């Protein structure tokens, strides 16, 4: 059985349990959602960044983190690039 658990970035209108929100200055709030089995109820921006940069690939219980992010045409992509990756689209692709 794969123990991978999911970290998803979705618009707030589509969320389940909200763990943390980022990008409050944007017109559309974004929520970070984790699988209910994951014992995480708060993530700082640096923690989120370490996950998205693949520096952190495991939760504390050693289950693997699997990222789910909506399509590039959605507003979340721009927010993730600017707020979490601090990268341009070109630099992200190279990364």
């Amino acid at each position, binding site marked *: 059985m794969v123990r991978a658990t999911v970290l998803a970035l979705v618009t707030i209108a589509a969320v389940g349990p909200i763990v943390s929100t980022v990008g409050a200055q944007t017109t559309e709030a974004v929520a970070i959602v984790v699988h209910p089995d994951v014992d995480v109820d708060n993530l700082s921006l640096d923690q989120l960044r370490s996950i998205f940069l693949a520096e*952190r690939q495991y939760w504390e219980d050693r289950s693997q983190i699997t990222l*789910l992010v909506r399509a590039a045409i959605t507003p979340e992509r721009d927010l993730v690039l600017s707020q979490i990756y601090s990268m341009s689209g070109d630099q992200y692709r190279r990364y």
Partner: protein
Amino acid sequence: MRGLRLGLLVAVFWPTVGLVGQTADDPAVRVMGFGDFNYLLTELDRPEGFKMGQMVGHAIANIDEGLTFFGEISVTGKDTGYSIEVERAQVRYDFSDLFKISAGRFHTPVGYWNATFHHGSWLQTSVARPEMIKFGSRLIPTHFVGLVAEGGLPTSPLGLGYSVGMGNGRAANIARAGDAGDVNDRPAFVAKVRSRPISIVGLEVGASFYADRLLAHDLSEANERIYAVHAVLDRDAPEILAEYTRVNHDPVTGSGSIPGSDAWYVQVGYRLPGAYSEVKPYARVEQVIVPSGEDIFAPLAMNYDGIVAGVRYDPGIFLALRLEYRYEQFEGLETTSSLYAQASFVLAGS
């Protein structure tokens, strides 16, 4: 492991799919390709004109939970035909973020460039690697066959990480890794520590150490010690890469130490803002200094001074065009000028 990360994450923002990512139902194998095509004008005594570059294939397979395979194969155009090389082949098991162990053929984790920008020139800003770390370099062993453990403390503010390895070291041809075994009974060791503060994306400082006993061209043996430090801000605006490496050789028999060799480079780049964001000018200054009394390297005429200036233009998502001027002096030759034009691209797979 940047290539591996790219492979895992490239699907996340793939524009034609909806909710995507790495899941248990994903294909077990992902593939990617890189290629480049070049044109050269030079004062060097080399053939000019169009040149096939290097075609590179990456394959990443999730074998089991925590167990992955990564392979990299290159096809390079040469005067005598095409050569096929297994550049990297690694089986890795992840115990945690702190401890991952791999076996196979690696890019030696010494310095920054060699362990970050792999085959596939699209990945790097310039047309080619710095002289000190070019593929086939005799100064630094670019490939390493053996075991490597690596990990990091992703929750630490400094983003501390490490790599340690034990392997075969250089082959009898010191430009090659010991793919068929060690040339002596002394394994090579490599260790690297780095800090990658998570709050400053792209910043990394680190230090590396490599130790081996190599077989010199006169069949004598020498202990080799390589010390390297690097400080980089690997971003688009600005990009600043700086590395320094010292290589010491001590003959196993004979009259003690011989002078060490030094090599360094500094590369800067800056992607222009706004409507010109497809354009990234860059420049690099580099040097390889081998003293005349260096018994291992000096006969190989490795001294080098180079100034590189170029422009990278990205007209498409996975296409880069470069125009690069080089002003170089190779040991024993007059200074020369060269002009390179290159198209490099990525073939993103499933």
